[in-house]
Structures are given as C-alpha cells and as structure tokens.
C-alpha cells in the first residue's frame, strides 16, 4: 500500500504541471466470477471516488493519457440456504489510462486499476462478523469507460472493471479433512456509474 501511495505521488507530481484535474465519484455494482465458491452469488452495491489527472495538450489529440487515484468499495453477496454472506472489499489504487475523444462531448478510455486492499469485511445474515483475512493484498483490473459531457464542467460516465487476479488463494480441505491443494478463485466484475467534475474552472479562479 505504501508503495502505491509513493508511486502515485511520483507519477502525479510531473503530470500535475500540464494536466487537467478532475474529481469524481459514484456508485458501483459488483459481483465476482467464481469456480469453487459455494452458493449463489448476488451483486453488491458499493461506491467509488477519486481524483483524476489527464494530459490536456491538444497537440496529442484525440488521445490523452491520464491517471486516477481511486478508492473503491465493492464486493459480493454469497447466498447459502437463504442466508446472505456479505463480503465488502475496500481498495485504494492507481489507474493509468488512455482516453480517446473522437467527438466533442463523448470520450472513451481504457486502462488498468492497480489497487491494494484496505479492508475486507464480512457480514453473516444480520450479524456483522468483522474483518476477514481471506483476500489477497492486491488486485489488478482492466477498465473500460465511456463518458459524456453533460455540460461544462460536469461529465457522466459508465465504467466496467474486469478483475484479472484471483482474490482468494486458499488451501482447501475436502469433506474427509484432507488438504486438496491450493485453490485460486474469485475475480471482481464491477460496473460503476458516476459524475466527474473538471476542476480547471474552479482552480483558475483561485
């Protein structure tokens, strides 16, 4: 996690001198792909927010590289015998991306999110059990996004994140009590909807 923070600062400091600065946030609906998890998986609602820095040099149009600092809370619900086991995963990370702006008000971007886990919480039915240690410390997600400028400086966006890393690495036990080997499972799938506000007009007034 410390490495991520320092990496973010290292990347953002030079970028900040010629970048468009934005703040954003919204809701996230997430689920997981699974092979070994027991029960039915249902989506979990969460949220995300962050700061974005995007190169604004018009000479490189219509492609603009950028990077985001993002906190995201997502997870999934595992329903077994009508009891919901709710897993909430909180991450903080960086998301370098390449933005493509073919039209004045429309843009898309593709990038990756590299995040470290802040906390994993577990609730069993109505009972809040607490923090779990079941999830790996980091995650990597491929992200695609489409964005529409509602009016200057507000944009609305839809983002899809496709986890590339198994979040669970576990030595499973069979019904007889024997270890069956290491199992890797659970990849995040998340859709986010949010608003992004370009901070340049506000900053220029300062």
């Amino acid at each position, binding site marked *: 996690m410390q490495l991520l923070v320092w990496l973010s600062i290292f990347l953002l400091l030079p970028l900040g001198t010629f970048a468009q600065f934005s703040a954003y946030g919204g809701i996230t609906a997430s689920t997981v792909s699974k092979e*070994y*998890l*027991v*029960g039915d998986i249902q989506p979990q609602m969460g949220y995300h927010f962050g700061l974005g820095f995007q190169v604004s040099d018009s000479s490189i149009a219509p492609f603009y590289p950028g990077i985001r600092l993002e906190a995201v809370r997502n997870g999934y619900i*595992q329903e*077994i*015998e*009508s*009891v919901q*086991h709710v897993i909430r995963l909180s991450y903080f990370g960086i998301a370098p991306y390449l933005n493509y702006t073919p039209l004045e008000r429309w843009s898309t971007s593709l990038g990756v999110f590299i995040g470290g886990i802040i906390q994993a919480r*577990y609730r*069993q*039915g*109505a*009972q809040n*059990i607490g923090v*779990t*240690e*079941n*999830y790996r410390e980091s995650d990597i997600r491929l992200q695609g996004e489409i964005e529409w400028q509602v009016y200057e400086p507000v944009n609305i966006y839809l983002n899809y994140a496709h986890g590339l890393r198994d979040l*669970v690495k*576990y*030595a*499973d*036990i*069979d*019904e*007889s*009590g*024997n*270890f069956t080997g290491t*199992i890797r*499972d*659970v990849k995040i799938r998340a859709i986010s909807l949010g608003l992004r506000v370009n901070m340049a007009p506000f900053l220029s007034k300062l």
Partner: protein
Amino acid sequence: MKLTWAIIILGVLTSCGGEFIPDPLDPRLPRYSEEGKNTAGCFINSEVWQAIGEAYSLANSRNQYLQITFTTDNNTIGINIGGYQGKSVDSLNTYVELAFIIDNRDTKIQSINELEGRTFVLDGDQSFGRIIDSRDFFQYDICRGAGQLHIRYASAVPDTNDEYIIAGTFSFSVDQPTCRTADVRSGRFDYRVNISPISN
C-alpha cells in the same frame, strides 16, 4: 476398551474468546488456521455445526470449549469440542458436542507437542468419534463413528509457560443399527489452550 474417566491427570481448556474468520469458499465454516482462533466447524449430515470459543467454566459445561484429556494410565486421549448445530448459520440453536477418543496404548503420547503431524484413524471401535447431542443423550456411549482425525499443528505458544495452539481437521460417520446415522464432514478446529491439571 472400557472408558474409565475416574481419574484425569491433565485437562487442557480454552482460555479466551473466539475469532471467527469465515472459510473463503464456504463461509458457514471457519477458515482452517493454526493461530489459536478458538473456532471449530463442520457439517453434521446437512446441518452446520459451529464453535466459537468462550471461556471454559466447570459450572457451565454447555460452552464452546475444547478440552483434551490424557488418562492416568496413558491409554486414552480424549478431545471434546462443544458447539452449536442448526439448519443454517442463523439458527445454530442446538448444543452438540463432538468427542474423539483415541487409543493411545501403542502410541503412548504423553504431551500435546507429540500430537503434531499425527493422523489418527478412527476405527469405530478402539478409537472413534461421537456426537453428544443434547437432544439424544442415549447415544453418548454406544454410537461410535469411524473416520479420521488429523492433528496438523500442536505447539507451545512462544513466551508462555503453559499455553499451546492445537489445530486439525476431522471427519467421521456413525452408521450402526441402533444409532441415528450421522455423517460428520469438512471438520476443522483451531484452539489456543492452556494446561490446567484436574484430578479427582
């Protein structure tokens, strides 16, 4: 084997509360660990059985403790774990104790450390697992299950005089004509215990 528990020279009891970390694949059970989390879990037939350790009290035997006993003649080792069973995790309302009786005549194990890494075959006769069900006390002595008990970790806690962590996995089946059929599977336990000699 005649089960004589008149004199017990050593009791090992849990000493503090449990920390339930769910199994990442099936959260009805605690994750297998070797850290002294004071938890245990398994399935008994299709129902969930969970134990989240609490302070042991002789005055309150209906507790979620783990107890190990070595008999004075060193012929038998007993491991008892108290927990609750229910149709699902939000209805764990029946106290059920799991007991493992290990024939120690050949192995002559005398201390907890010596349990580490051992797999005990429960033959359903000299060594066995049993279910002590508050709804069905008559099964206490007669219904002996066959299966296996792995003690995967049994070691002293550093910088303590009398504390140990003991963890393992288990499964057994009771299938005798006069007994209710029971299938205990996916069992695991992880307890931090302290030695407390008991004699009577």
